[in-house]
């Protein structure tokens, strides 16, 4: 049993699938996230894969300050990602609303609506920082899966 747990921990850490959600970002962080897939940074060597469907994903990468229009989408997509899951807030916008703070059309920051595991601040953050944040989220994801099993949480 212990062996299976350790294997699952390792596999979760080694194969994080991402789903990228833009909640009204200026597109700066989105461009930097896509840069991580390019030959220069090549995140595929860490097993990271950008998925088209939130159902396939383990880590939800959110950019943007969460506008009122996208709030429902954020909640829906968050609930569509299957457990165990982790959330990474990319850039300063989801963390603090950045220069948009106080605007009437902004419903952020993100942590008011869904639990955030890793913040990667910056405007936009460097791709290296994004990769480090995603790798840390994968660690959190792996340990979360094991502890949830140990507690005997019911299957959803």
């Amino acid at each position, binding site marked *: 049993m212990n062996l299976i747990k350790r*294997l*699952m921990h*390792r*596999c*979760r850490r*080694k*194969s994080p*699938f991402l789903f990228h959600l833009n909640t009204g970002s200026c597109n700066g962080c989105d461009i930097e996230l896509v840069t991580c897939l390019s*030959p220069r940074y*090549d995140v*595929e*060597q860490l*097993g990271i*894969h950008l*998925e*088209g*469907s939130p*159902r*396939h994903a*383990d880590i939800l990468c959110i950019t943007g300050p969460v506008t009122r229009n996208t709030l429902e989408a954020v909640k829906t997509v968050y609930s569509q990602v*299957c*457990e*165990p899951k982790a959330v990474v807030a990319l850039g300063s916008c989801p963390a603090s609303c950045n220069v948009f703070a106080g605007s009437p059309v902004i419903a952020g920051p993100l942590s008011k609506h869904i639990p955030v595991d890793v913040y990667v601040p910056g405007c936009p953050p460097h791709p290296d920082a994004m990769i480090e944040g995603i790798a840390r989220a994968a660690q959190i994801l792996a340990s979360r*899966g094991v502890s949830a099993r140990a507690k005997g949480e019911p*299957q*959803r």
Partner: protein
Amino acid sequence: MNVSGLIHFFLFPGLLFAVPAGWFYVWGERKAVARMQRRIGPPLLQPFYDFVKLLGKRTPSRHGIEADLLRLWPALSVLSMIGAIAMLPVFPSGRGFSGDAVLLVALLELPSICFILAGFTSGSIYGEIGAIREAVLSVANNLVFLLSIVTIAVTERTFRLSDMAGGSWNPGHWIGVFGILLCIPAKLRLNPFSTSSAEQEIYSGPLTEYAGAALAMWELAHGLEWVALTGFVATLVVPASGPWWFHALFFVVASFAQVMLLSTIAAATARFTLQRAIRFYWRWAAVLAVLVVCSTIYMRYRW
């Protein structure tokens, strides 16, 4: 069923060989594409990590006939692929499952049909668009695929797989093999025929609503499809005489060579639109295939 049939099904080239081989081929394709793009690419065990991780995901609970069907399609794909792989005459002289080409074609076609049905069952709009694209593409490439198999069958005067296997010197045989090779990218949904699971347009196509263990089964079925299709071509070109270990080695090496060839094509091409893909198969490949079948039948009755 005799003992050698069981060995074919469970050991080689069946379950015990095919599952790791499928992961290895999927890794080979991803790694080759990465190297051609000057990237490092995924580690060797990546498809295995993905598979185990997906098995450990908690999936949303569904109820009713739809839930059962959504679970049935990937399971059916995996089973039909293992059956197809077990039928392959890896050892031309040996006795395995003695089946003929018609059964093999039916088994090879099942995953594609399950893929289409999965798209419609899921009820997702992206799934339905992907399913329609896959259905149209399947009609397009199967014409050439079947004509190629008929060409080989007419040349070798048999539909028995063990008699069709082995590279003879007849040109009809090799044109048939070439025709089958032309169809493999569409059957594996690789570039330039990846329109049914085009990520940038329709997310994951028919698999959009899948998660967890059922998605892991689809990944497994895809790996097994690689083994079955490349293995089928490998058995058609293997030299008829030789010791058993040579045949086994040839099977693996020839399959992997095809994986490299297909990933080179996938990395070097962009995605065709559906119309272009159909045009490729129906205008060029099908005309060629019909000509070859006619000439082969003519040659057979003249002699």
